[in-house]
C-alpha cells in the first residue's frame, strides 16, 4: 500500500492532543531537518498510525488506539511548533 500524508492524521492528533498538526512544523529527531508535518508520510492502518519524515523515513510519531485510551508516541519529533488559536 502507498502512504498518505500528515493531513490524514489531523483528526487523531486533534482528538488526542488537541493540536492541529496540519498547521504544525517539527524537527525530525533522526535527521534534524525542519519539516511541515502535513507533508510527512503517514502510514495509517487499523494497527496504528505511523508518521515518518519524508526525507529520512525516521519515525516521527506513532498513534495507537487501545479500547479505553490512545497512546501517542512523539519521541521521534525533537520539537513541534504550532500556531496559537
Amino acid at each position: 500500500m502507498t502512504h498518505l500524508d500528515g493531513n490524514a492524521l489531523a483528526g487523531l492528533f486533534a482528538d488526542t492532543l488537541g493540536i492541529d498538526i496540519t498547521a504544525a512544523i517539527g524537527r525530525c529527531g533522526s535527521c534534524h531537518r525542519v519539516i511541515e508535518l502535513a507533508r510527512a508520510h503517514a502510514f495509517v492502518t487499523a494497527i496504528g498510525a505511523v508518521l515518518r519524515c519524508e526525507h529520512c523515513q525516521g519515525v516521527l510519531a506513532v498513534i495507537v488506539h487501545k479500547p479505553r485510551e490512545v497512546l501517542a508516541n512523539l519521541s521521534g519529533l525533537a520539537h513541534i511548533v504550532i500556531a496559537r488559536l
Partner: protein
Amino acid sequence: MTSPVRASWHVGRVASRRRETTSAVRLELDVPTWPGNPAGAHLDVRLTAPDGYQATRSYSVASSGPTTRVTLAVDELPSGEVSPYLVHQLADGDELEVHGPLGHYFVWTPTEPDRSPVQLIAGGSGVVPLFAMAVAREREADHADFRLLYSVRTPEDVFFAEELSALSKTVVDVVHTRRSPTGSPRPPGRLTPESFAEFVFPATSTPRIFVCGPTPFVETIAHWLLKLGHDPNRIRTERFGGSG
C-alpha cells in the same frame, strides 16, 4: 472563516442524500453545533455498531463558510468498512458522529492576501476539497485567478458536474482517462507531462497549487510541477487512500 477553529465532536443528521457518481453519494448533513469550516477542510466520520465496535474515516467537506449545513461526497471502496455503509445504508434523518473541522494546511480562504493565481489539480474523488475552494472563490467578486484541472476515468465519474460547469470564476478542465463524452474533441487518455503543462498556470506566474487525489496521482503531478519549475513551497498536497 478567518481564524482556525478547534476541532470537536458533533452529531449531524442526514438532511438529504443523492447519487453523485456511479460509486459515490452526496450527503448533506445538518450539524447544529458546526462552527463553519474553511474551504478544503475535512472531518472524520465515526460509526458505532450496536455491539460497540467503532470505525472512523476521513472525508473532505465540499462546503465551506459559516454554515451548519455540511456537504460530503463519499466514494465507495468495495472492500471498505465505512464507505459502503455511508453509500448504501445511511438514510435521510439518520444521525452521524463527525469530528472537525480538521486541517488548516490544505485550505484556501478569501482573506488570503496572496492574489497570485491558484491552480487546483484533482484526481478522482480528490476533487472534493478543491471543489470547495472553487465555490468559495465563486462567492468573491474579486480575487485570484483560479484554474481546476480534474482527471477522471469517465464522464459518469465526475463529482459536482453541474456545479463545475456553472463556475464563472474558475476555469475548469476535465480530462477523461478512459472514456470521453460522446462528441468530445479530445480522445480519452491519461495526462502526460506535455498535455499537463497546457492546463496549468506557468511557473512564471508563481501560482499557489493544491493537488489532491490518490497517492500515486499526487506524486506524479508533484513531480511534473517541479520539472516545470514550480516552487515546491507553493505546492500543497493531500493524499487520499487508505482502507475506506
